[in-house]
């Protein structure tokens, strides 16, 4: 099977592509670094944004009439979810500090339940530089 694979033309083509990819990529990147390309790309980005906004505005009304959420609505929801995640994160942090506080208080009353934290006394091994 391995011999068959080595003669597989698609495999050979893929191997050639993998080997020569860097040269092709370098050539494309060089082309993209050309001043005319850079100017064209800059213009294209701004034009695409402009048309995207125009299209988004007109579609927004159309989608609202059809009772379908627009991209803006989805982004609003994503922001609200992120806010909820942030709040949950704050609660998580607060719970962690309260738990540490309780453990410390408990350790003050019961010596056997002292919070276990690793000793910060480690030294590098002799062969370390």
């Amino acid at each position, binding site marked *: 099977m391995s011999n068959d694979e080595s003669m597989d033309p698609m495999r050979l083509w893929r191997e050639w592509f993998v080997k020569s990819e860097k040269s*092709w990529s370098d050539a494309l990147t060089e082309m993209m670094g050309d001043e005319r390309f*850079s100017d*064209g*790309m800059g213009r294209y980005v701004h034009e695409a944004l402009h048309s995207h906004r125009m299209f988004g505005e007109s579609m927004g009304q159309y989608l609202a009439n059809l009772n379908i959420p627009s991209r803006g609505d989805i982004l609003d929801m994503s*922001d609200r979810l992120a806010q909820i995640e942030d709040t949950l994160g704050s609660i998580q942090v607060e719970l962690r500090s309260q738990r540490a506080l309780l453990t410390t208080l408990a350790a003050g009353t019961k010596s056997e339940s002292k919070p276990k934290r690793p000793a910060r006394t480690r030294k590098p091994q002799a062969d370390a530089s």
Partner: protein
Amino acid sequence: MQADPAAAIEETKHMSSSTTAGRADDSDSELDARIENVVERTILRNIPGLSLHVSESDLDVGPTPKELVYSNETARLYHYEPLLDEIYRVPILLVMSPVAKGYILDLAEGQSLVEYLLLQGHDVYMLEWAAPRREQSELGLDDYVIDLVGGCIEAVVDDCGENEVTLVGYCMGGMLSAMYTALNPEGPVKNLVCFTTPVNGDGMELYKKWMSSPAFDIERLVKELGNIPGDFVNSSIQALRPLQRSANQMRLLNHAQDDAFVKAHLRFDRWAVDQLPVPGRLAIALARDFIVENKIVNNKLELRGELADFSKITVPFLHVAALHDHIVPAAASKDFIDLVGSEDKQEIVMKGGHVSLVAGGNAVFRLWPQLDSWLGARAL
């Protein structure tokens, strides 16, 4: 020797026809075998892909147990559970790039820098970034360095009870770490390690050409978009080596029978396209101040009126660069070591690319032990 020529011809014909029939049989069985082979290979190639799509849990990343310690705006500070009973005194704070997710440093069991450091006895924290919300587009470079990195360092100090921290920054996380250290030379940063960190905007050639073009207006882009979307960041990174992803897909097909290869590939691939959006004001600072005006190398970068002068960094410093890094090429990072004012400073240039430097096979066997050795001697 044939006595009867006609009989000989007949025999020859018979032999010839039986040979042809034999050849036809051989050819049929060969064809069957080839079809069987193709079907078998197709199934083998598809199984790993199918199983991975069916079971996302196979691709789980970030397996090392951790707890959220601090959260502010887009900053998320996690503490990893120590794995040994005795650890080094000075904790490590890994600072991720604001455009990349932190799981590249904790990709999978046995392929995790975090796990390795824990097993060597380091106390590890990680500053990861959450995707900015629309109202967070006003977060700038000064907020990231002074409030968010600074806030996390304070939280680490509070949490572990030590007054010193080692900063280990990856890519732009290294840039943020170095800026913080330059602004706070009196501490609490004890050591600074930066992986593949760009400091010279002129070395980011393609981005420099694009962003210097009069047709490209970053402020207008930010005004329109608020935050720069992750897809936009991803496309910009892909442009630095446009066919690499296709080549990786070809490589994947050639190793489709190797389940471990497929899983590792898909984990890397998932991370490579999983870019975070960039807050608008931060994007403007990176494009204008860092790339176009090259303010780090020209020593003109000011954050809230204070000069982030890298020559003020005097703590032990290690910079690790990748020989074949196309995202942060040598031209963008080689000046770092000279800019830093530390007496104890070292640069390691290793084989590999931007990602394989910290998470590839070479990292596991070469970089990580060197990093542990360097950190261990300075974490007392």
